[in-house]
């Protein structure tokens, strides 16, 4: 590595939309230092479907928080969509999360007192740029995830799978370049898991870069590339040869 501060195209499937160089995250608990991430170099190209795996404490969640612009690294540098995060302000990071990233959480994190449509509209309301017709766009997103007929349902009136679909629609509302999903199927049964992962594959085919954190290999099998973490380092990083969706589900 001649210049460790510049992202290079390690995987030549497109320009890297996420780049990490020598990324470290160190937590201090009392007088003990925990190296959650220890000098990670990683490039994810636009249009990839990446699964990040590893046992708990391996650093995969820490990486997700950094990629999601929710946290700052202890050392190292990262670029998202070509922009270095280290010189961005708190507000800049918020705008980046709003415009470029879409989040899907294990616990869905929907606002309980608002219906599906209102939940999906939420990121549009924080958008700095006027995106035109918020409502039409939110409706289109809900239709894309197959919930066009349940827009006025509140989260409590929806099943777990449906709630996660609303959450995905919300993540899509601002037309993000990257979809980040932290254990998106952790609270769902197998059948629903398949549905959600198929949805993610569809979105990936439409050009959205998808990064999924999971500890289930069944889920990881949907991704085109799997990265295993252990003790804050990348243990293995391989493009998956036979895609599960190719065999049909």
């Amino acid at each position: 590595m001649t210049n460790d501060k510049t992202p290079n195209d390690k995987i030549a499937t497109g320009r890297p939309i996420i780049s990490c160089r020598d990324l470290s995250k160190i937590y201090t608990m009392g007088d003990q230092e925990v190296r959650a991430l220890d000098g990670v170099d990683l490039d994810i190209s636009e249009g990839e479907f990446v699964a990040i795996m590893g046992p708990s404490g391996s650093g995969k969640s820490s990486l997700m928080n950094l990629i999601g612009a929710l946290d700052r690294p202890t050392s190292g540098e990262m670029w998202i969509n070509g922009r270095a995060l280290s010189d961005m302000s708190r507000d800049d990071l918020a705008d980046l999360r709003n415009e470029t990233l879409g989040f899907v959480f294990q616990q869905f994190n929907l606002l309980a007192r608002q219906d599906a449509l209102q939940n999906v509209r939420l990121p549009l309301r924080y958008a700095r740029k006027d995106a035109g017709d918020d409502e039409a766009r939110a409706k289109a997103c809900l239709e894309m995830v197959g919930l066009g007929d349940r827009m006025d349902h509140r989260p409590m009136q929806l099943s777990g799978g449906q709630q996660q679909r609303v959450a995905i629609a919300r993540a899509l509302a601002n037309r993000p370049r990257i979809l980040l999903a932290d254990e998106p199927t952790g609270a769902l049964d197998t059948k629903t898991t398949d549905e959600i992962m198929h949805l993610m594959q569809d979105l990936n085919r439409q050009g959205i870069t998808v990064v999924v954190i999971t500890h289930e290999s069944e889920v990881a099998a949907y991704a085109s590339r799997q990265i295993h973490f252990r003790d804050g380092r990348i243990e293995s990083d391989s493009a998956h040869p036979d895609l599960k969706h190719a065999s049909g589900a």
Partner: protein
Amino acid sequence: MKFGVATSSAAEALFSNPLRSLLTMLGIIIGVASVMVMMSIGEGAKAQIDKQISSVGTNVLSLRPGNLNRGGRNLGGSSGRPFTEADVTALGEQPFVQAVTGTLSQSANAVAEEANWVTNIQGGDASYFEVNNWRAAEGREFTAQEVQGGATVALLGPTAAKNLFPDGRAIGQRIRVNGVPIEVIGILESKGQSGGMGGDRDDTIVAPLGMVRNRITGGNRWVSRHVSAIQILVRDGYDVLDAQEETTTLMRERRKIAPGEQDNFAVVNFADMIKQRAAATETMSMLLAFTAAVSLIVGGVGVMNIMLVSVTERTREIGLRMAIGARGGDILLQFLFEAIALCTLGGLIGMAMGWVGVFVYAQVANSPMMVSPIIIATALGAAASVGLIFGFFPARRAAQLDPIQALRHD
């Protein structure tokens, strides 16, 4: 910045737990209600005082004999030695006196042809009307010659006139006051109610001083040509307080009071008297203002407390909002808006209650009901300011949350 997010989530938070919202608002409600009552009492009192001052005149001095103490017993108002017409004449020669009149008064049983009416009769000089700024609305005032000659003529106050002559034709008619036949020559202007100043000032009869003394009240056993009170109109350009002092000096001389001895009479400056009463009202206003301030502060602390609880309860929601792109400023605005909405709603309820309070006060104190737009704006402004001030700290706390820790919160 889109205000929609802040307003809708504020309304939602407010109505999702109505009992809590109401209890939180209680301090604000009481505070705003007191602000309203306080301000309207203040304004009403001020208006009333202004009216009294303009009806009496700010440059009128009134002399009354002091209270007489006999064997340690206070014999009550104006029981001391009365003044005399010579006193009135002497005062009239002073440079600061524009006009002066002696007065006598007596309760009177007036009988007209068709009606009778219990009222009072006041004797005065021809300058009575000028000094009191009280003119004949109909007919004429009596002249100095009539006073001198003891003419049996009188002017009626509007209330007395209305009761004695319901058909309205009083002038030229004859009435009997305590048995003395008197001709009505005029009707006075209406002075209206003047609270605390002896009720309805319009319910009276005014007649020449000498005639009233000789025919109605009777003379004083010890003092000849007595008058029970003297009123002075101070000449323009003279200070009323200076005039008050000079009058006191002159009267001490005339009543032969040795230096060091107490006055046995009082020189009252009407404007001063009214201002003193105004000060009493002001004290009450201050007390209410204090109550209002205290309850607004207590209410504000309550709002701050509940907002801190709300921020803690909704930490996860805050984390989510941040994750999907809310800036710190958006979160700040959301919670600030919620606090202001809470306080403003409390303010509106408080205003409704204050209105009732003002209405009740107006009935009880018989004062005009004063609720001006300024009062409403002040009351609502106070409530919103409390929301802004006490909502800021919790809102800033929410805005400064770390998105990851907020998301992990449960």
